[in-house]
């Protein structure tokens, strides 16, 4: 894999709905700067919404880091959602549709996976969870 070079980075602490708003705004701005089409900027904002919602719901607080990145010829946006919460005991279960209580099929983490080009999740019980997603410029 080509080395990833990072450019700009924004960190948003997530504690309340207001912080979610801020994270979405920063994500959308970064996407716009990278010349994402409007629909893809919306995808980025959506992913941030779902990731931030997860942080507030399960860990109470955390952080979202939005980075503009370059990997070979590709340019894109990397979103990292991190918390020091209770962690996810069973990741594959959490990644299954219908597991979350959100109602619609595939909202929550599985939805984020489908919206983004790349998705990684690391979690340790009683230590926290980190989700790292990438969306490349089309």
């Amino acid at each position, binding site marked *: 894999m080509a080395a990833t070079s990072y450019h700009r980075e924004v960190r948003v602490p997530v504690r309340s*709905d207001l912080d*979610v*708003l*801020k994270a*979405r*705004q920063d994500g*959308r701005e970064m996407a716009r700067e990278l010349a994402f089409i*409007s*629909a893809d900027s*919306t*995808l980025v*904002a*959506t992913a941030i*919404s779902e990731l931030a919602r997860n942080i507030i719901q399960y860990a109470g607080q955390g952080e979202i880091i939005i980075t503009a990145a370059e990997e070979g010829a590709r340019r894109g946006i990397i979103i990292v959602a991190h918390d020091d919460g209770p962690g996810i005991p069973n990741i594959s279960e959490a990644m299954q*549709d219908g597991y979350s209580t*959100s*109602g*619609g*099929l*595939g*909202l929550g983490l*599985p*939805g984020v996976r*489908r*919206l983004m080009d790349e998705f990684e999740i690391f979690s340790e019980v009683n230590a926290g969870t980190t989700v790292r997603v990438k969306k490349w410029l089309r």
Partner: protein
Amino acid sequence: MEPESKNRQLEIGAARNVQAEAAGNASISPGPRPYKRSVKDELAEQYGAALEEYLQQPGEKALQNAYEIGRQAISGGLCVTEMLAMHHDALSRVLISFGAQGEESEDLMTQRGALEGRSLPVGSPQDFQHLVKSVEVFLDECLMPFEITYRGYVEANEALRVSEERYRELFENANDVIFTTDLLGNFISINRAGERMIGYVREEARRMNIGEVCAPECQEMAYRMLDRRVMGGESGPCELELLTRDGRRIPVEISCQLVCREEKPIGIQAIARDITERKRARESLRHLTQALEQEAKRIAHALHDEAGQLLASVHIALESVARELPAAQGQRVRAIQGLLDEIENQLRRLSHELRPTILDDLGLVPAIEFLTQGISARTGLPIEVEAGGVGRLPTHIEEVLYRVIQEALTNASKHAKATSINVNLRQEAREFICQVRDDGTGFDLRAALADNNERGFGLINMKERLNFVGGTCVITSSPNHGTEVLITVPLES
């Protein structure tokens, strides 16, 4: 938001909905009644407010609102078209206000009331273009949860397709016949093995009922099995004969399961296995057992009658010799006579064990009593025999019962370390029941059946012999709780 304008908006929404409800439920109490706001109305109002807010002050907050409304719409079970209708309503109000800046008819004035006091982007075509674009962004945001859900369904469908394909392959390539029917036994699906066996292709089978492919005398059994399943009953596989298109009969073992959807029974799923070979094997085993029994009878007869007769003659001859000899030599001949007596006794016992003539002559109960007396004498184990209302049974049933009870008694006396055994024989209207109970150590039935030893074979032999006469044998045993063997044989009325 001003409370006044909110109230007016509410009234508009309420009026529209009462109309819609009245149209849909004309028969139910027309006229005004207390109106209950639905999730949809609630969201429509929120959406309208959020859209206006966004157009006045484009920002992330209103977009986030739009997203949350979309999310709630999904949780509330709304569909995309309802979402779009909501958008359309909100947009109409915005556009009325936009267009009404120039010329205002009375009607528009009234409708515009809802938006009174707002300053929306108005006027020029550039403004209009900007408005359209903003509205698009806003709608996109609101539809995003639907997009996620849609992608979820696409993925789930694909996974479903793959798993269905795998299931279908399993279904089609199975050697056993697999089929499903509705609750009345009408075929819904059947696999290739099934088509091959009954000789009907699935399109034909789908117009047929299970009864049509059962041998006439098996139809009742098939329906009984079906009904039992539908009523939620459990039972093991059953054997019946299928009738093929060209009139052949094929014995099968069928096991079936109730198929439920949302906890309601909707059909039956069944697996049928051709047991022609198994039946043939069982039949030859039966012949073999019968031949063995005949052979034992012949040898027992030869031992008892022929050898016994000969020994008796020798006895008489020796007796006369002994009488003619002097006392001292006569004593030695008498000693030989004593040995002859012992031989005769042993021959009689051997003959009896091979084939108790008492069974043929007096029937099951005396034969069992004689047998238990022998075992008690040999082992010192008290064996109680209780028999109520048992008369003579058909010879082949008496034979089977005798051998099976003999095996059960052998097990109890040899392996169980019992201190007493109880045998209970009962003849009822339609069946013969026998219980053999001991207070011994008990044993692990599964392990015993798996053992390739005398006891394992003995147990299998019991089941097989009973099978010939349609009987069953239930063995209840656990370590330290003794063993009960319950033998049941149906009697023809």
